[in-house]
């Protein structure tokens, strides 16, 4: 046992710098990516993939770690998008400030809603959040102040940092890349923090966790609020990038589900899951939509539905599990060889 322990530590010490080197390499690659990818359309796919990484990471906090299946994330997305857009349109306020106002509003709303719905468990919570999303969609469609069903077109200015508007896609790419990196780092920190462990406990058995002195409700509220905060920031980014928002483009149940499915296909409750899920699902469905869109409407969604069923039936713990299973099979083979040597 002793010997194995020491060997383990040595291995870990050797592994850590290697891991960091890998992360830095990936980051450098991502920073250089717009230099390689020149086509506007491909850059658009890159930006949206990164956007869904951030959204799925945020969802992962409430859905993956705390185990509360929230399907109304478009509410927070819309709050972020609408707040900054209205402030920009009516008060000429820079979205760099507007995005924080929107995120703050989203947190307030999430705390208020969470106070009501976070008492619900399982299916009940999922359905209540779906209902909230639908209420928001219908209300925004009929609320004249936010543009009603027509939505809001952002005023076009000459490219400037103040208005977060550029003629080409590269600055948007770097903004969303920064967000993705920061949010991933945050989730990574939370993963190994008290929050992460408590959340796991609540997810496994809420009653048992409460009996151990964990304030499950506060924990869920924290996860919900963080999720709302990040999602609202992405909402502002989306509004600035697309320049047009309307209830029928951003308040759709499909989007809430897509966010969750990305995290699930990747692997719930893991840091890498949302990244793997987004990288796999988004470009694939987008390519299918673009390439086969003329041939068949909604083929991407057919595939999306099939993928969701397939993943659940074949590898319920997502890509992360698949990757680690493959890695473990290598490790085990190596381990067997070593063990065989020790026994003889």
């Amino acid at each position, binding site marked *: 046992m002793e010997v194995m322990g020491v060997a383990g530590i040595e291995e870990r010490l050797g592994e850590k710098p290697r891991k960091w080197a890998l992360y830095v390499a990936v980051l450098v690659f991502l920073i250089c990516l717009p230099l390689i990818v020149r086509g506007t359309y491909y850059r658009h796919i890159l930006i949206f993939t990164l956007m869904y990484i951030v959204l799925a990471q945020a969802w992962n906090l409430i859905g993956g770690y705390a185990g509360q*299946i929230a399907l109304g994330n478009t509410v927070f997305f819309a709050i972020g998008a609408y707040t900054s857009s209205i402030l920009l349109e009516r008060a000429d306020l820079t979205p760099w400030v507007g995005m924080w106002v929107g995120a703050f509003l989203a947190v307030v709303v999430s705390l208020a809603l969470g106070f009501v719905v976070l008492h619900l468990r399982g299916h009940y919570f999922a359905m209540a959040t779906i209902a909230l999303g639908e209420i928001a969609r219908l209300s925004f469609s009929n609320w004249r102040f936010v543009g009603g069903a027509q939505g809001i077109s952002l005023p076009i200015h000459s490219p400037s940092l103040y208005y977060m508007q550029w003629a080409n896609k590269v600055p948007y790419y770097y903004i969303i890349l920064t967000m993705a990196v920061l949010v991933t780092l945050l989730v990574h920190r939370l993963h190994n923090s008290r929050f992460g462990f408590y959340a796991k406990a609540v997810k496994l058995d809420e009653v048992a966790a409460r009996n151990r002195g964990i304030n499950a409700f506060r924990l869920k509220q924290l996860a919900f609020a963080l999720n709302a905060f990040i999602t609202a920031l992405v909402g502002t980014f989306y509004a600035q990038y697309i320049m047009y928002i309307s209830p029928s483009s951003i308040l759709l149940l499909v989007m809430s589900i897509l966010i969750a499915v990305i995290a699930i296909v990747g692997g719930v409750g893991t840091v890498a899951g949302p990244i793997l899920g987004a990288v796999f699902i988004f470009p694939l469905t987008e390519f299918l939509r673009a390439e086969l869109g003329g041939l068949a409407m909604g083929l991407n969604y057919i595939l999306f539905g099939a993928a969701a069923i397939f993943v659940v039936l074949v590898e319920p713990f997502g890509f992360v599990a698949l990757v680690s299973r493959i890695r473990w099979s290598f490790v085990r083979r190596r381990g067997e060889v070593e063990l065989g040597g020790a026994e003889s």
Partner: protein
Amino acid sequence: MTPGLVAAGKSVRLLQQLWGTLMLAQSIVSGLLVGSVYALIAVGLTLVWGIMEIVNFAHGSYLMLSMYICYVFYLLAGFDPLLSMPIAIIILFMLGIITYKTIISRIMQAPMLFQIFTTFGLMFLINYAMFFIAKPTFRTVKISFLDGVLKVGGLYLDNAMLVSSVVCTLAFIFLYAFLHLTKIGKGIRATTDNPRAALALGVDVEKMYAYTWGISLALVAVAGSVLSRILYTHPTVGDKFGLFAFVAVALGGFGSIYGAILGGLMIGLVGTVVGVYAIPWMKLPAVFAVFVLALVIRPQGLLGWK
């Protein structure tokens, strides 16, 4: 003021009052008629939930499928959907059993998260497969049989709506008789009460699960057939009804059949009354708001037991 004017004013006020009560009665009756269809859809959902604690998010998609089946028969043979209803029922019954055998039986033991997303995946698959096959065109079944408006003592009743709720009521009676009088029905009820005890007493639980799925979708086929006489058939037509079914089920209490019926009627009422007396677009948000409130105040539902 002359007495004549006063009398005229009085009679106008009386008329207004009469009009007011008539309108209220009208909206209540219309609400109950619509509600009976919601109730039937909700009963299918609650049956599945009661026996295996799985929420079928694709419920509305199956409704849409049955509407398309009726449309196809109308197109090919000019059948009234009431005539093609038995065919739709048989097809959907088989579909239910196939869905259970191929997909649902494998996720019975899976965590809730995966159960939810499997049925969501099904919803996407069915909806967009229908987009693919039928194109997003609005289709109508034009029928003359039992069309028009019936006038009963100052109330106007839409004949098509009346027929729908009569058919739905008949379906409830059939379901009740089936669950209480037949062996399979009794088996389903036993399994719903306690699967292990049912298994110990020799009930083929697996079979009961499959039958429940079949029956759940057969009920949807009944609702779909009558709805295809009223609504446009469209690949996303079922989504709203699916959501309403959840609301009805949650209102009445998961697993409770009477609860689902009560919930469905309540949704119909809330929708129509809010639509008439408040702002028309508030109809749907009001229904969902009632849903969230009901969930929070009484999570087990009005008549729930789980």
